[in-house]
């Protein structure tokens, strides 16, 4: 069991290292290097060469990569080309704002979708199932910006309950951001929940058709007890993975929604740094997202293992 966890962790670290290398290479491929980007198009070749030298850009790429990795491991992601501030601190500030949205989104999406998925699964092919399945089909068929736009139309324009755009910068306090968080979170939750609902429904249907649920029923247990004690624990197992994948998806999903609401989060920073070719910031965001993805997957695997003894033995024999 322990060796299995250790092996998974090592594999996860390998993935992380490889994606940081891929991002580094991709960012190197962006046209125009840092020096020309900072000095502008009209800079003299001498000035560009000088800045390249002082930034260390004249050294071979692998040397710069190892340097960057060493810095990143110590929490130093370099300096933003646009704001001139340390990338680590800047990204952390935006990330904190996004975390506020993410937290509320996950809370809404997971509880809501599990509930709806279980209801749909238990009332399979009857009206609650048809209603929930149709709504989730529509939910997964519209992009985030559409959900966000419709929400603005309903709850900012028709009913002026929530602000349609955020007027604060990245250093806004939680209190200032809180009224603006609900619509972006709701938009993301709708899209995210649609997938989890479908997964939970299928999973519940599978488990309810299994032999041990039949046995539990034949023992004369009440439906409530059969569902809560026997069916749900195993039904939620496969859902765990989808939830983990969706949490990782959230980091990309916020890019669109934050831009709709002008919310000062990591998604907005991502977009503006790509527009400005702010390479150190892009790199830092990519690596942080990769960490979130890898950690979510690892957590889902370990969680699944903790809940399902059979996976533990299979891990050992492998």
């Amino acid at each position, binding site marked *: 069991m322990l060796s299995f966890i250790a092996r998974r962790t090592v594999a996860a670290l390998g993935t992380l290292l490889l994606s940081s290398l891929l991002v580094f290479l991709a960012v190197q491929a962006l046209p125009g290097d840092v020096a020309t980007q900072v000095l502008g198009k009209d800079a003299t070749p001498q000035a560009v060469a000088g800045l390249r030298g002082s930034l260390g850009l004249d050294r071979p790429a692998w040397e710069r990569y190892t340097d960057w990795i060493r810095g990143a491991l110590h929490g130093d992601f370099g300096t933003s080309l646009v704001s001139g501030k340390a990338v680590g601190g800047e990204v952390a500030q935006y990330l904190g704002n996004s975390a506020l949205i993410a937290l509320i989104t996950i809370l809404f999406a997971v509880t809501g979708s599990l509930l709806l998925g279980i209801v749909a699964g238990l009332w399979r092919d009857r009206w609650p199932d048809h209603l929930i399945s149709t709504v989730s089909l529509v939910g997964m068929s519209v992009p985030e910006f559409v959900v966000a736009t419709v929400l*603005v139309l309903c709850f900012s324009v028709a009913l002026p309950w929530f602000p349609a755009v955020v007027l604060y910068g990245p250093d806004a306090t939680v209190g200032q951001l809180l009224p603006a968080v609900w619509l972006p979170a709701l938009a993301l939750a709708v899209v995210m929940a649609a997938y989890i609902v479908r997964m939970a429904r299928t999973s519940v249907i599978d488990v309810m058709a299994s032999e041990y649920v039949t046995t539990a029923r034949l023992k004369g247990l009440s439906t409530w007890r059969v569902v809560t004690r026997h069916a749900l624990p195993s039904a939620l197992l496969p859902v765990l993975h989808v939830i983990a994948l969706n949490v990782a998806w959230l980091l990309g999903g916020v890019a669109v929604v934050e831009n709709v609401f002008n919310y000062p989060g990591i998604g907005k920073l991502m977009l503006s740094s790509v527009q400005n070719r702010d390479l150190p910031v892009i790199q830092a965001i990519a690596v942080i997202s990769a960490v979130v993805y890898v950690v979510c997957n690892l957590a889902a695997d370990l969680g699944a293992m903790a809940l399902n003894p059979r996976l533990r033995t299979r891990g050992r024999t492998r």
Partner: protein
Amino acid sequence: MTTLDTARADAPAPRAARAWRTLRSSRTAVVGLAIVAVHVVIALLAPLLTSYDPIAGNTSQALLGPGGAHWAGTDQYGRDVLARVLYGGRYALGVSVAATVVSVVLGTVIGCATALRGGWFDDLTGRVLDAVLAIPAVLALLVVVTALGTGPAVIVLAVAVVFVPQVVRVVRGAALAVVPADYVTAARARGEGTWPILRREVLPNIVDVVCVEFAMRASWVVLLISSLSFLGFGADPPTPDWGLMVAENRTAITVVPMASVAPIIALATLVIGLNLAADGLSKAWGVDRIREGL
């Protein structure tokens, strides 16, 4: 040998016919495919369905609500919204279909090859694809588009970068179930190479998985491409495109809500059609895509 060959040549025809019959028996799939077909027809016949130009506007007619001359109203430049929605399907369908074909074909070939070859090749490909998957799709798209400039070909490439790893995962899983089969071992024993085995033995047996994958990816690709246009990295401004239209008309949403709502309806119905088709196909053919982690 000859008898074997004819037996194999005969096999696909009844298989295809059976697949078509099961497909027709699924109401979900038929409805989904019908919706998609309607979209294709509308996109192809757009010039016949409207007399307005989707790009040239008449500024004296700007920001009109739905009415007799302009059924869905006009936008801030006085362009007919309905014409832009009808023509918008061309960009959405054209780029999405191209991107999906490239992603699914590449993903299928790599997925089958890794399952068939196994060993270090499989391990290495798996590691690299995992690393690509760990980077958020939107960021990968933005970096590719920024590096290579906008334009349909770049968007297709960018989408392929994002979706190939996911297709590889699913196809590899399906192919792994086929590889231990006796007929693959027999083909290997006959000394056939990787490519002929892949084409003649493995591919025909996972064609249902690939089809479902195609329908499902197509819906994701449409969503992703429209999001990209919405963010200003996809279709270039005068182009009629649904994502772009929502972005352009959002600011005037209180004045002419129809200008935003019409492209939203078009986009949603297309994706609903694709999702229904994917659902119906997977159910009718017994491809369990939900359990494969979407």
